[in-house]
C-alpha cells in the first residue's frame, strides 16, 4: 500500500516537472523570436529618418548662405551654428557636429553640439550625415561637415 502511494506521488511530481519544462520551452521560443525579429523600430529605420532630417537642415542653412559663413568667418561662428541647428532640428533630436578639412583634421576647436555626449555612445540609433562645403566667397577650400544625430 505504501509502495503504491509513493509511485503515484512520483508520477504526479514528474507531470509538474513536465509542465514546467513545456512552459519554459514556450517562453524561450517567444523570447527568442522577440529578440531576433527585425522589428520596424530597429535602428536602421530610425537612422534613415534622422539622416534625411540632418541633410535637409544642412541644405536649408546652406541655401540661405549661412553655413559657409559660420564655418569660414574669422573667427568662425560656432555659437551661431549651434543656435541655428538647435532651432532648425526637431526639439527631441540631439546633435554633434564636427568640421574637417580634406586631410581629416578637425577644424572646430569648440564643441558644436546639443544634448548629453553620453547618448551618442550609448544609443543604438545614431545617424551620421556628411555634407561638403566647397568654399567661401571666391576661395576654394573644401570642408567636410559631419553631423551626428540621435533622438533623445
Amino acid at each position, binding site marked *: 500500500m505504501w509502495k503504491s502511494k509513493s509511485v503515484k506521488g512520483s508520477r504526479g511530481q514528474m507531470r509538474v516537472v513536465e509542465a514546467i519544462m513545456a512552459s519554459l520551452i514556450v517562453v524561450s521560443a*517567444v523570447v527568442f523570436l522577440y529578440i531576433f525579429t527585425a522589428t520596424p523600430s530597429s535602428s536602421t529605420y530610425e537612422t534613415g529618418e534622422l539622416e534625411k532630417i540632418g541633410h535637409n537642415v544642412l541644405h536649408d542653412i546652406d541655401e540661405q548662405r549661412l553655413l559657409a559663413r559660420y564655418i569660414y568667418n574669422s573667427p568662425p561662428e560656432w555659437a551661431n551654428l549651434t543656435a541655428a541647428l538647435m*532651432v532648425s532640428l526637431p526639439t527631441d533630436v540631439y546633435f554633434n557636429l564636427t568640421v574637417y578639412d580634406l586631410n581629416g583634421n578637425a577644424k572646430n576647436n569648440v564643441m558644436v553640439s546639443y544634448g548629453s555626449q553620453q547618448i551618442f555612445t550609448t544609443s543604438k540609433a545614431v545617424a551620421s550625415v556628411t555634407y561638403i562645403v566647397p568654399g567661401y566667397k571666391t576661395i576654394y577650400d573644401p570642408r567636410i561637415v559631419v553631423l551626428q544625430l540621435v533622438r533623445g
Partner: protein
Amino acid sequence: MTGEAYDHLAAVVVLCTIFVFAVFVVPSLAYVNLLYLEQQQLRNVALSAIKTILFDEGYPANWGSMHGLSQFNQSDVKRFGLALLSDPSLYVLDPAKVQRLAYNPMGNFSYSRVRELLGLTGYDFTIVLRPQFSVDKDVTISSDKKSISFNVNVSRYDGQPVPNAIVYATIIYTLKGNKPDEFDTKAINMEKKYTDSLGRCKGTATIPVPSGWEIRDAAVIFRVTVADRATIVVSKQSTPNPDDAAKVSLVGDYIIARIDESLPGSKDARWICSIMMYNFETSINLYNATVPPWGDPDLQKGFRDIWSMILPGLSYGEPAILIFTIRTDIEDKGGRTIVLLIGPYTMWSQGGVIEFNPGAVTSGASVSLQRDVIIAGMAYIAELRLWKTK
C-alpha cells in the same frame, strides 16, 4: 495524500501561469510588433506623401494663382504639390499654394480633395507649417494714447527659451484728430534689442502726438533672428478686430480685399487708404489714398464685395506682410474711424501658423515627419502627421 495535494496545487499554479502568459503576454508582444509594423507602413506612406507635397509643383504648375481674381476651383487641380514653380532649390514652397490650405476668402482646398489627390484614402493626416521658433508677443497702447509698448518672448517649441535672439520691431500706428476725416498713418523702426536669458524682451515707443490727436490703432512687425535665421511675426492691438474690416488675399501679383456677410457691419462703407508691404529686407508703400475726396467706398456689402489691385512683379518681391489702413465706421457707429488690417489673412490669422486639418490622432499608430522649408524667403518647419482612418 498531502504530497498529492501539493502536486495538484503546483500543477494548478503552473497551468494558471501558462494561461496568463498565453492570454495576455503573447498577444501583447504580438500587438507591439504589429504596432511597429503598422508604424513602418505609415512611415513609408508618409515619406512618399511629404515628398509629393514638398517637391512636386502639382498640375497645373501654377495652380495656386491660376484663377486670378476668380474664386478658386479645387477641381481644376489635377495633381497636388506645394513646390514653387521653376525654383531649382529643394524645399522652397509657393506662398500662393500654401495660402490655399487654410481658410482663404478667395477659396481654398478642402481636406477630402487633398486626400484624394495625394492618394491617401484610408489615412488621415494633418499638415502644419510654422515658424522655426515660437514668438509670443503682445502690443498695448497706453491709456493716455501717447505711447505704444510691446513684449516679446522667444522660445523653441519645447518651451526652452532662446536667449540673445535679435528683435527688430517696426511699429505702425494710426493717429486720429478731432475732425471726422483727420487721420494719419506712420511707421517707426525701433532700435534692435536682444532677448534676455529667459528669451524675453520689451520696448516702448513714445509717439509725438499732435495736440488734440490720439493714437487710434497700432501693429508691430517683429523680425526675430537667431543666428541670422530669421522669422517675421506681426502683432496687433486686439481691438477693434481687424478681420471685421475685410480679409486680405495675395494671389500672384493681385492684392485682393474681400468683405463677406459674416463680418460685423458688413454693409458699412470701407475706404482703403494705404497699403504697405514688408519683407525681410524692405518696407514699400504700395498704395496711398489718404487725402479726400474719398469718392465711392472701396468695399461695401451688396455694392462692392471685392476690391483688387494688380502690381506687376509684386510676387517677386516676396511680400511677407501687407498692412492695410482702412477708413471705416465699424468701431463708432455714425463716426468714421481708422483701422489697421494685416494680410494675407491665411498667413497671419493664426499667428503665422498654418494648420491643415488640425485635429487629434484617432488611431493607435501614427507617424510625424518634419522638414525645413522656405516660404516667401522665410524659414518654416513643415510637419506631416499621418495615421490610419479608424
